């Protein structure tokens, strides 16, 4: 995934990216909702409106054959995506952009496990990688170009490759 999202030209970049989505697949919702929250990893998509912590930005939902992708483009250029199974659970998330989003909101109940793994690492200043049977998290990058993704293997819908989510 190219790190084309930037601070200075973020909105322009996002528009061009969204445009390409439009040409490839139907978007059933594309609205700017300042302050709209998103559900976190392992959570229920129905809890979106109830979330107290906000990732401000424009929301786009794209229906895929085996899941739906909810995407929030923060004004600061960071893009957060959540992948929702047909049963309505967020089975994967990803982020990419100049700043790290509020990962406690994005990772939900898994945030503490993420922090614990980072603290336990013998090698410092390194990407954070968790590859457990119950959780996979990868966070990499540097200031102005961060990226990461996470999924819960037990929640991944049948037939979906969590390593190949777009």
């Amino acid at each position, binding site marked *: 995934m190219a*790190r084309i999202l930037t601070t200075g030209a973020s909105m322009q970049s996002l528009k061009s990216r969204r445009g390409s989505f439009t040409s490839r697949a139907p978007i059933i919702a594309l609205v700017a909702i300042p302050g709209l929250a998103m559900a976190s990893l392992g959570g229920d998509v129905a809890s979106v409106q109830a979330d107290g912590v906000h990732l401000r930005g424009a929301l786009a939902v794209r229906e895929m054959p085996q899941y739906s992708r909810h995407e929030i483009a923060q004004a600061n250029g960071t893009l957060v995506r959540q992948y929702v199974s047909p049963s309505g659970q967020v089975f994967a998330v990803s982020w990419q952009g*100049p700043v790290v*989003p509020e*990962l406690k909101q994005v990772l939900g109940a898994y945030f503490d496990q993420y922090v614990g793994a980072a603290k336990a690492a013998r090698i410092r200043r*390194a990407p954070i990688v968790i*590859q457990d049977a119950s959780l996979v998290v990868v966070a990499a990058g540097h*200031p*102005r170009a961060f*990226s990461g*993704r996470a999924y819960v293997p037990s929640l991944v819908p049948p037939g979906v490759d969590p390593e190949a989510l777009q």
Partner: protein
Amino acid sequence: MSGMTGVARAALAGAACTALLVLGGCGGGNGAGGGGTSAAVENTQAVVVDAGPVNVINFPFVTVTVCVPGNVTACQSIDHIQVDTGSSGLRLLSSVLSPALSSLPKVSDAAGNPIVECMQFVDGFSWGPVKRADLSIGGEKASSVPVQVIGDPAYSAIPSTCANTGPPENNVAQFGANGLIGLSVFLQDCGAYCAGHSDAGLYYACPTSGTCIPATVAVGDQVANPAAMFATDNNGVIIALPFAPASGAATVAGTLIFGVGTQANNGLGGATMLGVDPTTGNLQTVWNGHVYSGSYVDSGSSAIYFGINDLPPCTGAAVGLYCPTSTQTLTASIRGMAGSSSTVTFAVANADQLLSGDPRLVAFPDLAGPASDAATFDWGLPFFYGRRVYTVFEGMATPAGPGPYVAF
């Protein structure tokens, strides 16, 4: 750590600077000149890769002298400042600062509220106020540099929007160093965006500790790449490290050189220039038939990170790194924005074996590990051993063209 000897060292630095003043060196103010040849300024500083304050692996350190702006008697020499080409700005851990630096002036917003930063690194965040300091390193000086003081007890209440981004790195044990000197291609840690928008999550205005709100901060008040503020030799830096033995070393001694093409010791020579993305600092690496679009040359990363379990993962002391049964010699191509490229060969050894040996060994040239995504190729400190790696700052002129670029 710094302590008593720091005073003596600062006095020596001051004496050296007085001598250089006679020759026209030791510039004061925020010089904006670039490029031109400058005689007599000592533009080098020793770099050491050693265990540091908390037994870290592959951290390059320098000693810097920090003074209260305009006050040459209120100074401190601080050792084990990590050299990081992946970020910008000087950051000091509050706990290592002597009383002499307690009066560093705060950077405040228009209403007089102190500016406090939530700096983000890949493995955590650091919280603390922005203050101004005079900096001396080698013979180079920069005045009134906005720096971050991390873990300042006067601002111990961390906003949830900061704490929620990841693990805290607010003391020496968590941070791994007494501070960090960020010498990336960028002139500030945020830049124009944070001057106009408060939602990047980096800067807050804090009337009191615990009542912080997101704030915009003028570019000139943002934590700044200090090497770009020197009066001379301010267009870039070179990190020159010797080869390190594959089995590891307890200490590797190298040199941090300021300026590119400004003195006899910092010419580009035969180095290949690779332009980096002016918004991310990234370039591309091609390895094993795959293009890694998020690649970067980062002295602040402890190993080379690439691939998704392309080599066997470690299971022992070096979990998170690669552990091939025998050392693998690999070749990759690093591509710049303008299409130029450079082929590099690097080795990946069994990190479990290396890190379970003599605990005094902390400098390893053959450490690599998975980044576990399809875009990241992080050329960390192992890449720097045996090379002169140039980092040229954005918008700065050099004899070979303007930054931002890297070269080696």
